[in-house]
């Protein structure tokens, strides 16, 4: 029987769920090793948290699930969380502002309308935010944490793509584009549409010359950025600090032996980035990304607190996780079955309790089905032998008269 599921939503089967938990726990483990603390924010937030300039681009805001609450007569709309970072920034401003430095991580779902209904409208993210530092080392820390997590999942072929919001914004400023138009162009470039730049009349020849190398080439070393910087007109001082920052970060990544590609046009529909932006992909699938967002927290709290962060996309990662590498529980499961009507159920329940206490996963049998997930079958009856233990893998059987004997037998068989 098929009962329809909401468009754009998915179920996770036990198999997928174990992959999900594997990714989640690997992420958690790495975050904790780097000193990050876990937080959780609510699924419902006010719409206005996401509407101000510098948060989500209008194209993403047009896909937010918003509605009036049962007490929403004022017209105040609430939304299903459309983004992971902004609520964490709110949480920080709300209750952690006294901490100079906060390292936070979370595993959360975010919601965004997708027109066809064939792709996910609910997306799971593993996110980490480093709030309170403007250091380029903090950006590198986040990239390393993400890459280590991916490596920990057995994914060694991650591709790292870099861009820099500061460089893009400086370019647009140099073009002499006014504030309003600049914001629009930045949004479009972040939405992946750098073609818009072709339509702009560029008067300054230095900027025109910069256009192809900056926006269409893919640099593979800090040398690429140094080359561009050397060709920069001395008048274009706006670029200086952003290029220096970009070069410092790429230099360090190189010295750490990390490969990357510089692709200026790689954004993700987030207006809040101000500095380095990075994306991770595996065989062409984007599996994560992040960047520096120094203006977001000032927007919420009027305090000048810099931050950067990233998120890994759980749903995108699941297909890349080899089922075989997902660690199975090493505990062999027992199916406990009553084969005589006379045996009181309390005996069965207390036996199961003993087995679980000894660390065995034990399920009671209610029918004749013996699923292959079980390793042992333990039959009980009134009379002798009280226990019959069958190894379902080998078929070997032992007749036993006391629970301690059963436990001894299990220990013996499970010994390496």
């Amino acid at each position: 029987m098929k009962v329809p599921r909401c468009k754009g939503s998915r179920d996770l089967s036990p198999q997928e769920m174990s992959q999900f938990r594997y990714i989640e726990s690997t992420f958690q483990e790495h975050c904790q090793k780097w000193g990050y603390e876990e937080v959780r924010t609510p699924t419902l937030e006010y719409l206005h948290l996401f509407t101000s300039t510098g948060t989500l681009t209008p194209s993403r805001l047009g896909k937010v699930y918003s509605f009036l609450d049962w007490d929403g007569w004022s017209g105040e709309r609430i939304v299903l969380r459309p983004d992971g970072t902004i609520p964490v920034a709110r949480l920080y401003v709300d209750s952690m502002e006294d901490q100079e430095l906060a390292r936070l991580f979370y595993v959360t779902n975010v919601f965004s309308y997708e027109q066809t209904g064939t792709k996910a409208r609910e997306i799971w993210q593993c996110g980490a935010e480093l709030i309170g530092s403007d250091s380029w080392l903090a950006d590198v820390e986040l990239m390393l944490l993400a890459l280590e997590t991916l490596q920990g999942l057995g994914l060694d072929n991650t591709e790292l793509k870099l861009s820099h919001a500061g460089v893009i914004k400086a370019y647009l400023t140099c073009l002499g584009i006014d504030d309003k138009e600049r914001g629009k162009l930045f949004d479009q470039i972040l939405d992946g549409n750098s073609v818009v730049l072709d339509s702009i009349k560029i008067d300054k020849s230095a900027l025109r010359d910069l256009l192809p190398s900056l926006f269409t080439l893919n640099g593979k070393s800090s040398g690429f950025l140094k080359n561009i910087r050397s060709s920069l007109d001395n008048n274009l001082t706006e670029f200086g600090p952003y290029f220096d920052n970009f070069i410092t970060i790429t230099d360090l990544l190189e010295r750490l032996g990390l490969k990357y590609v510089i692709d200026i046009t790689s954004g993700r529909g987030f207006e809040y980035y101000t500095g380095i932006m990075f994306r991770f992909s595996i065989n062409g699938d984007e599996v994560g990304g992040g960047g520096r967002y120094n203006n977001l927290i000032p927007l919420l709290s009027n305090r000048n607190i810099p931050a950067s962060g990233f998120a890994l996309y759980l749903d995108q990662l699941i297909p890349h996780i080899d089922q075989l590498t997902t660690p199975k529980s090493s505990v062999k499961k027992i199916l406990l079955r009553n084969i005589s009507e006379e045996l009181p159920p309390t005996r069965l329940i207390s036996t199961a309790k003993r087995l679980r206490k000894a660390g065995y996963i034990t399920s009671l049998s209610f029918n004749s089905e013996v699923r292959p997930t079980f390793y042992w079958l333990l039959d009980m009856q009134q009379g002798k032998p009280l226990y019959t233990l069958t190894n379902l893998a080998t078929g070997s059987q032992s007749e036993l008269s006391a629970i301690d004997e059963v436990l001894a037998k299990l220990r013996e068989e499970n010994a390496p």
Partner: protein
Amino acid sequence: MPLRVALPKGRLLPTTATLLQKSKWAVGSYTEKSRLYRLQAKRFPELQVRIFQEKDIPIQVAIGNYDLGICGLHWIDELLVKFHSSAVVKVKNLNYSRGKLTVVANGSQNITTVNDLKAQTQVIRIASEFPNLAEHFAVTNRFRQFNIFPLWGGAEVYPPESADLALISLEGGKIFSDHKLVSISTILDHSAFLIANRQSLESKDMSELLTSLYEGLTFLHKDAEVSKQPTTRLMIEKKSFVPQASTRTIWLALPDGHQKEPTAELLNKTGISVDGYSTKIGNHRLTTNLADVLVKVVRPQDMPLQVANKNFDLAITGKDWLQEHLSQFPTSPVVELLDLKFGWVKVVAVISMDLTVSDIHELRSLNNNRNRPLRVASEYVNIADKYARDNHLGLYQVIPTWGATEAFLPEDADLLIENTKTGQTIARHNLKIIDTLFDSAACLIGHRDVPNEKVERINKITQMLRSTAEEE
């Protein structure tokens, strides 16, 4: 399956009728005075022609009840801006009945541009019949905090006391306003459009109909009258009278439309005189013979939400509209203060006489055996939704309507939640009542929390009205 076309009542009707005439459809009775909802086109005897409120048409085409429709672009965009994947395709701009969708503010507010608004740090309240387009306007302009008040009409009356902005459609005529309204931004130039259901356009042959309309359109636009149609300008009457309100002022909302006459009579008997309320076209802000009590004339449908937001202290509306509000917002602070004992109607559940079921339980069983949603049409979308939920109707959809709901059965809906005085209209349309939800009458409503400086006077007005109502 014959093709089905939805045509508009109201402002688009005269030119649309001319268009059909030029297209040689020979649709009888498509006139303003006709009370018929289903018409025949002699040129296309198979064609089913149905008359709707203009607002209903995009929804009716989107849900597939009609293959083609004619309505203003603003109503199409009001649907599409929120529901991007609605199955509505804009087929052709018919280019008549032009208008502008404009954001206006009150001249006394010192707001003249969008940038003035962006600089505001407090919540911006926008009143409109076009709540989705209003939200889109607020989002694309990156307002920090905004609230939208959806309205049934008369949005221009709301600023400055009850809203900061109104999004209104200017359609050539004058907008009556006692304050000077200033246009902040025009967000859409609209005109009549031909729309089609996406699936119909993809799979049905409608070419003969479309060709005839396009031919008719060419003739129509050769007609000097249509092509010379003036482009709409913001024409607002500035009246000299501006009521002076303070924080002590009690705002009383009085209904326009058909509740106006009995309300005026009630006030008259009570000894409350409201200057100009009874005149046919008048100001929407009025003074009274009571100290520091001002009146706003608005749609009764819009009153409970405004009372909840403390924009009005007292309002004379219907229990049906109070119930509609409470169905959407169960914890709302709006309370009924007084039953005014006029304007009695019953709110009922209605189905087609052709269905064999006799109550809601039988309808539920019937619905459980079908695999398409039960279409519940109503002006009271929240009452209808709650009724369907409470009665476990299973798979259902609520179709909002703007009047003449009885004409929706049986083709365009399966169940109506509708008000009726005598039941005669329902019987005349071959329909039957299967349930009565509640009895409604006019009532006085107020806010649960009344500021101290107003308590005494509000109680006094309530008491005065109570004495009159009880004499009836």
